[in-house]
């Protein structure tokens, strides 16, 4: 640990302490309760962000998970006579189990379908809470009593500060407890999301197929994301029950789930601060919109921020003045409107709706996203280089970790593979053998079945018939992630990068297989997990260096030029330490100079002992690199051999140029 780290930790500790002591200085119970509620919401919303922000799935069932946590505490209290502590353990566990249950259909569905699953789940849970009278008291609800943990008033002799009414002491202690849990949640969620787990979640959002083909099982990690999210919902629910001390089924309705989603969107996805801001807004908004003076004050603040942001942007000319004018005018107009408005209660909901629309339109990344953007603009003027340049010297040369195999047996043996879509035979009894250490070219006209072949090899399609042997083992019945982990990596014809992840994180997703430490090790930062992360990082850098992208390691992949994206895909695929690399048209759309670079890299990969199947339309690339070439046409193998042979094969020429012109050649 160096000095900077130590001072950072000290600062954080002081900050945490300040947060925990803060409530003692707030005299109004109203604000104490408000802070408690906001902190409880924040824990849930942060958990929801794992699903919504990171895996990109919309859950309209989180209110139910919250309710499960809350009712665990409630039922423990009235039926078993157990207090808060057992509930705080059982609540998250039970909610987590339900989270897994909720995610089960995620195997097959995504998008609005999954949203519907969560909605149905939420409705069923609410009905069950309402109907299971014997357990939950049904619609009558469960009253609880507020807790007192330590009677600090016994210590007033030493510390007169603690002299206060018992009711206030209860509220205060609970508030501090909730804040402590919030800090703990921030810490744990931060660590999980910064680890391979967080990268896996984002990977499956940006490209599920690529995630599967990097050995990161989409299904498994989606379920995991839901479970993590549910655990925090359960924790939040258990805390909520003792904060409100009255539970009723209608607390946990569909509207609540929408409110949580709003909190994430408003505050900003993929951050810890965003959910807290979002929670503040949704908890405080009803009060804000009830009090006209307060509302005017808030509108003025928004108008000032809007004008300042507008001026900054206008000076920098990052956006056209006209485009900026609308939101700024809206901010100012909002203030004028708030002055003109004299009766607020009747139009509250509409104002709420307009605010959401405004955020969706002009703050698509939420308030935190907006702040980050502003900060970036301010920074870009003061310091041009935000990060120190990466030292080239520290990057080790990449070498694949492949066990040397002393055998003459072929690496890949495909026999009689048939792939049928309805009446169409995309692959028709194809045989193909790839020898170790070679580049095997695969060519054919468009629609001849090349990509289908790759998809069959990588488990995206299950072949109708035939057999695939890889390293002597059959791939039959294996899913994409298992195939990827057995040493078969690929790139994609239409680039499938994880757009919102940085370059290095893209490669780190490929290195997912190299980790051994689990979720708890990550959450509590075990020495092994720290070491693993450092090792993986170094290896990812060496891979980026290998394809010449080390300088832009921290940039988002989606901002990369097209040619470089293809190189990044290769680096990511190599991170799997594959025996066989499948390159699907790596040169498509590349400039001539990019192609030269690409050819050199492919050659180097082979020289390091990785076998390659290369699909390509650039004949000079294929002919120059390949040791053997197979030609497909209408799903059938029409030729195979060394490049020179294939080049002169009349059937190949016919396939490429059409029957009539074949004789002319």
């Amino acid at each position: 640990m160096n000095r900077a780290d130590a001072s950072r930790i000290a600062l954080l500790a002081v900050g945490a302490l300040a947060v925990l002591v803060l409530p003692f200085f707030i005299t109004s119970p109203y604000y104490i309760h408000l802070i408690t509620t906001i902190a409880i919401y924040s824990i849930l919303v942060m958990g929801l962000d794992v699903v919504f922000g990171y895996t990109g799935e919309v859950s309209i069932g989180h209110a139910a998970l919250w309710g499960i946590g809350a009712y665990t505490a409630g039922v423990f209290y009235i039926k078993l006579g157990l207090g808060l502590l057992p509930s705080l353990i059982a609540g998250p566990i039970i909610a987590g189990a339900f989270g897994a249950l909720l995610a089960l259909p995620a195997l097959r569905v995504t998008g609005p379908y999954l949203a519907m699953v969560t909605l149905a789940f939420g409705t069923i849970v609410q009905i069950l809470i309402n109907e299971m009278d014997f357990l939950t008291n049904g619609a009558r609800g469960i009253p609880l009593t507020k807790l007192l943990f330590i009677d600090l008033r016994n210590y007033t002799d030493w510390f007169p500060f603690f002299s206060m009414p018992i009711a206030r002491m209860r509220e205060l202690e609970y508030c501090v407890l909730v804040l402590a849990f919030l800090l703990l949640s921030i810490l744990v969620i931060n660590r999980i999301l910064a680890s391979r787990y967080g990268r896996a979640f984002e990977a499956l959002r940006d490209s599920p197929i690529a995630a599967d083909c990097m050995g990161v099982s989409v299904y498994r990690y989606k379920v995991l994301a839901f479970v993590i999210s549910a655990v925090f919902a359960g924790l939040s629910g258990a805390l909520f029950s003792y904060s409100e001390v009255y539970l009723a089924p209608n607390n946990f309705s569909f509207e609540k789930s929408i409110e949580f989603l709003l909190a994430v969107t408003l505050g900003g996805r993929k951050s810890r601060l965003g959910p807290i801001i979002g929670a503040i807004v949704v908890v405080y908004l009803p009060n804000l919109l009830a009090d006209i003076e307060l509302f005017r004050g808030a509108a003025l603040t928004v108008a000032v921020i809007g004008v300042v942001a507008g001026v900054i942007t206008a000076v920098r000319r990052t956006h056209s003045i006209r485009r900026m004018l609308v939101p700024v005018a809206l901010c100012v107009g909002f203030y004028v409107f708030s002055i003109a408005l004299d009766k607020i209660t009747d139009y509250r909901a509409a104002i709420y709706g307009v605010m959401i629309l405004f955020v969706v339109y002009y703050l698509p990344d939420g308030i935190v996203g907006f702040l980050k953007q502003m900060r970036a603009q301010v920074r870009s003027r003061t310091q041009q280089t935000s990060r120190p340049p990466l030292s080239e010297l520290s990057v080790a040369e990449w070498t694949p970790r492949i066990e040397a195999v002393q055998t003459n047996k072929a690496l890949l043996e495909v026999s009689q593979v048939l792939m049928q879509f309805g009446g169409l035979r995309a692959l028709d009894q194809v045989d193909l053998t790839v020898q170790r250490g070679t580049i095997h070219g695969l060519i054919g006209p468009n629609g001849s079945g090349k990509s289908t072949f790759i998809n069959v090899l990588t488990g995206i399609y299950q072949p109708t018939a035939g057999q695939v042997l890889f390293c002597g083992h059959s791939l039959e019945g294996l899913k994409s992630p298992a195939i990827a982990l057995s040493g078969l990596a690929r790139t994609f014809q239409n680039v499938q990068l994880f757009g919102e992840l940085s370059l290095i994180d893209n490669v780190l997703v490929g290195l997912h297989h190299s980790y051994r430490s689990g979720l708890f090790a990550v959450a509590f930062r075990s020495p092994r997990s720290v070491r693993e992360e450092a090792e993986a990082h170094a290896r990812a850098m060496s891979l980026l260096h290998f394809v010449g992208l080390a300088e832009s390691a921290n940039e988002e992949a989606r901002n990369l030029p097209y040619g470089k994206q293809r190189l990044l895909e290769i680096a990511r695929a190599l991170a799997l330490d594959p025996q066989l690399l499948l390159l699907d048209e790596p040169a498509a759309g590349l400039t001539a100079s990019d192609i030269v670079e690409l050819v050199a890299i492919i050659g180097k990969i082979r020289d390091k002992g990785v076998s390659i199947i290369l699909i390509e339309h650039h004949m000079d690339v294929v002919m120059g690199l390949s040791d053997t070439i197979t030609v497909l046409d209408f799903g059938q193998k029409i030729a195979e051999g060394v490049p020179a042979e294939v080049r002169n094969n009349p059937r190949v020429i016919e396939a490429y140029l059409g029957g009539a012109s074949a004789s002319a050649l």
Partner: protein
Amino acid sequence: MNIKTLLCGAATLCLLTGTAAAADPIKVGLAGPFTGGSSSMGVSMRDGVKLAVAEINKAGGVLGRQIQLIERDDEAKNELGAQIAQELINKEQVVATLGFINTGVGQASQRFYQDAEIPVLNNVATGTVLTRQWPDAKSNYVFRNAAADSIQSAMIAEEAVVRHGFKKPAILNDATNYGMLGRSDLVAALAKLNVKPVTEEKFNVGDTDMTAQVLKAKGAGADVILTYAIGPELAQIANAMAKLGWKVPLIGSWTLSMATFIDTAGANGDGAMMPQTFIEAPTTPKRAAFIAAYHKAYGGDRMPSPVSAAQGYDSAYLLAAAITQAKSTDGPKILAALENLQTRVEGVVTTYDRPFSATDHEAISSNIPVFGLVKGGRVVAAHPEDLAGDKAVRVKPKG
């Protein structure tokens, strides 16, 4: 970084913490659902309270000070109700709060008033539990001037079983706190008369098809349907009965007088009966004046929920009388005054003569409500003799 930013957030919140100094007017909280499904009751109640407060202020206010109402919409949501309670108590520093339509919201939020020693006058919510939430407490700050469910259910049971001689009632209620609590009160009241409901069916708020529930009641051979639900769903019950060509009397809680029921059930709703503390008819000069003033202020020729409006109106006068008597806006003193109110308060529901005591926080006793009957789009007295002559103003018995 995250903890730093959290700190910033907490600091901002602190800035918002400003404790308002006691202002000149007397601040009174007014909480109820003013938007959403049960808002017609909330808005009628609010309008009734505002009407009374305007009259009181015009006449010079209380203790020489004007009453200022702090309105808050609880949207019929428990959690929001709890937040509002704390806001009204700690931020607005109200001296008392009027309102509450939904029993659940009352249960979730009134403990804050109890802890803060600030009186609450429930003017619409009927859940029996509300005035007895803390049986062991030294004093209870929750009062009510609405007919509690225990009163209403006993009246419904008696009307059905004794007056009309029905022996096979079916209970239909909504699956909310209101409906479920009402149903258990109703079952208990029937049991006292040695009658057991032939079936008990429920439905969700927002359901539009009641065929299954009505068929079950019909199948069980019910000779009367007793209800505990609110307007829109009650109308669907009446409509489903009409559709199935099955006609048995509909008797239920006071919500059968809601305009949503009367309008949407139309002719199908005629004949429905319910206990009413107030029927929109000028049976006394006071009532005539109230009805005229209400329509002058808010338009229309029929109140959306006359009972809510009248009880809201009365609650404001009860509170004003108590503050005047206490000569203080101090919670415990107002409580003492309410529990021992010296002045007779002439309201529109009844004339309140010592309506509360230390042990009894219910201003409405079982003799006050009468049965209303839906007839031609209005609620009229089911038994006009109940309101005839000197029985027009029914007063809570002493002691």
